[in-house]
């Protein structure tokens, strides 16, 4: 049943304890953590994620791989404190070990010869970074935040992308408004591109609609509450409308990146 989104067999996954090389605070609630995990980094590519054991919590927490440094055998995770699990994660220290399962998911399959627009909303920005780095000159980024205080990774995006637009809801930095405002301008100028987006559901829905109206291919990275993270428990369901009908796909196995025109944003 999963033939549309084949899970790449043969790729390795690991569950092991890896050393935290560094942990840095990016804004009042967001942290960047570099993990020494050569074997895991070797199997990673942008858009994939790892599942992290947080103290005594029964469920691991899924966090996207933001940057990959295969040479040094590290990956960078950027996460926001949302609840007890991420709170625990934010209090780890360099040198400690972290129990990590991964890499997981299909991630992006970038075709970096094409012009690509990367759209990140808040904590949806980090998963875009690795892919933008692959596209380099062909990458344009639109990053949306609530206000200036929340901005993260701007320098990193600037370092790799051709252009970076920032929007804030309150206008405290960049364009006042939403990422879709900037996207509309860009698409009205040139529709020859692919759009990648990650962020809150309303944003993804807006981006997907705009792309559909403009006949632009769009991939969205979805979040869903997870159990196993590997495709075995079927809890992370996402309804899709595909050519052959309705399906219940799974964010951890078939995603987290989906073709936006197939995603049922209602379900």
């Amino acid at each position, binding site marked *: 049943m999963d033939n549309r989104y084949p899970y790449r067999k043969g790729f390795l*996954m690991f*569950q092991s304890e890896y050393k935290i090389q560094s942990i840095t605070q990016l804004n009042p609630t967001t942290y960047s953590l570099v993990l020494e995990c050569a074997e895991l980094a070797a199997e990673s590519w942008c858009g994939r994620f790892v599942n992290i054991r947080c103290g005594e919590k029964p*469920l691991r927490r899924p966090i996207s791989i933001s940057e990959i440094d295969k040479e040094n055998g590290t990956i960078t995770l950027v996460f926001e404190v949302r609840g007890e699990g991420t709170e625990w994660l934010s209090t780890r220290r360099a040198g400690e070990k972290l129990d990590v*399962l991964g890499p997981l998911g299909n991630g992006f399959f970038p075709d970096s010869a094409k012009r690509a627009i990367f759209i990140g909303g808040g904590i949806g920005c980090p998963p875009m970074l690795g892919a933008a780095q692959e596209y380099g000159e062909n990458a344009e980024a639109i990053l949306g935040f609530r206000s200036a205080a929340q901005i993260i990774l701007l320098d990193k995006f600037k370092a790799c992308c051709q252009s970076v637009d920032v929007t804030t809801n309150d206008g405290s930095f960049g364009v006042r408004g939403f990422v879709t405002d900037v996207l509309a301008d860009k698409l009205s100028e040139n529709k020859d591109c692919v759009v990648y987006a990650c962020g809150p559901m309303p944003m993804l829905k807006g981006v997907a609609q705009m792309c559909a109206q403009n006949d632009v291919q769009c991939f969205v990275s979805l979040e869903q*509450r997870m159990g196993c993270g590997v495709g*075995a*428990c*079927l809890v992370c*369901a996402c309804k899709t409308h595909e050519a052959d009908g309705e399906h219940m796909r799974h964010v951890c196995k078939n995603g987290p990146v989906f073709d936006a025109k197939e995603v049922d944003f209602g379900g």
Partner: protein
Amino acid sequence: MADLRVNIAGVAFKNPVITASGTFGFGQEYARLYDISKLGGISCKGTTLEPRMGNLSPRIAETPSGILNSVGLQNPGVEGFLKNDLPLLENTDTVVIANIAGSQIEDYIETVRRLQGSSVDMIEMNISCPNVKEGGVSFGTSPESVERITKQVKAVAEQPLIVKLTPNVTDIAEIAAAAEAGGADAISLINTLTGMKIDIETRRPLLKNNTGGMSGAAVFPVALRMVWQAANRVQIPVIGLGGITKWQDAVEMLLAGATAVQIGTANFTDAYTPLKVIEGLDAYLDAHGEKSVMDIVGKVQVW
């Protein structure tokens, strides 16, 4: 190295550790992490006659030392199972248990019929699902209905039949006895305890299905008590599960009377749990001078 082999209804298990239905897919995902032929057995994802989409997301919530799930039996249907999933397990040297469910007795019977002649070693019948004909209460909650469905399904099954009991009942021993009376070759327990969680900001249940099944360490004491009560009532083998997260829990289950154990939710926390349980059990038996795992089954000494 103690002798870890157990025999349940004529089926030989290399060790008493089985992965629980619905938490281990059809084994292939975890096969990327370790050699799943090290397992005593695998209970496959619950399979129904027709393919099912399951419930809408969110389907999972975390609770203190436990989880709630409301997958709603998403599965490819018995034909999909036979065609795509079972073949992948054929070269795996472990006991393969098909876990079946349905909303009418006829569905169960037909599902089991389709499994005849397949490489499935055993059938585990999940009777916690709502019984449409009896007005939505589950098959598993009245002794009469448990005995009836067991008898009818047993009649068409060549493979040994395990009846999987729900803990949402007043008297588990009575239900276990009914399964035995119906001809079950073994029973497994417990399935999930029904629970709920509400998001106080949105004022909506966290699960789209409103309620879900609770599993994980939190339910272990209830599961252990029920396994003990059931094992004291029936003669057929009992498979104990519910909240096992470490080898010590498995030992408790065996002492309470289980011949084998299943590991579910703990796979999510630590994918290596089943292997760690096998190793820990082995070391425990050695340390206590026990030659075989069978020597501790039911050996709790009550006060």
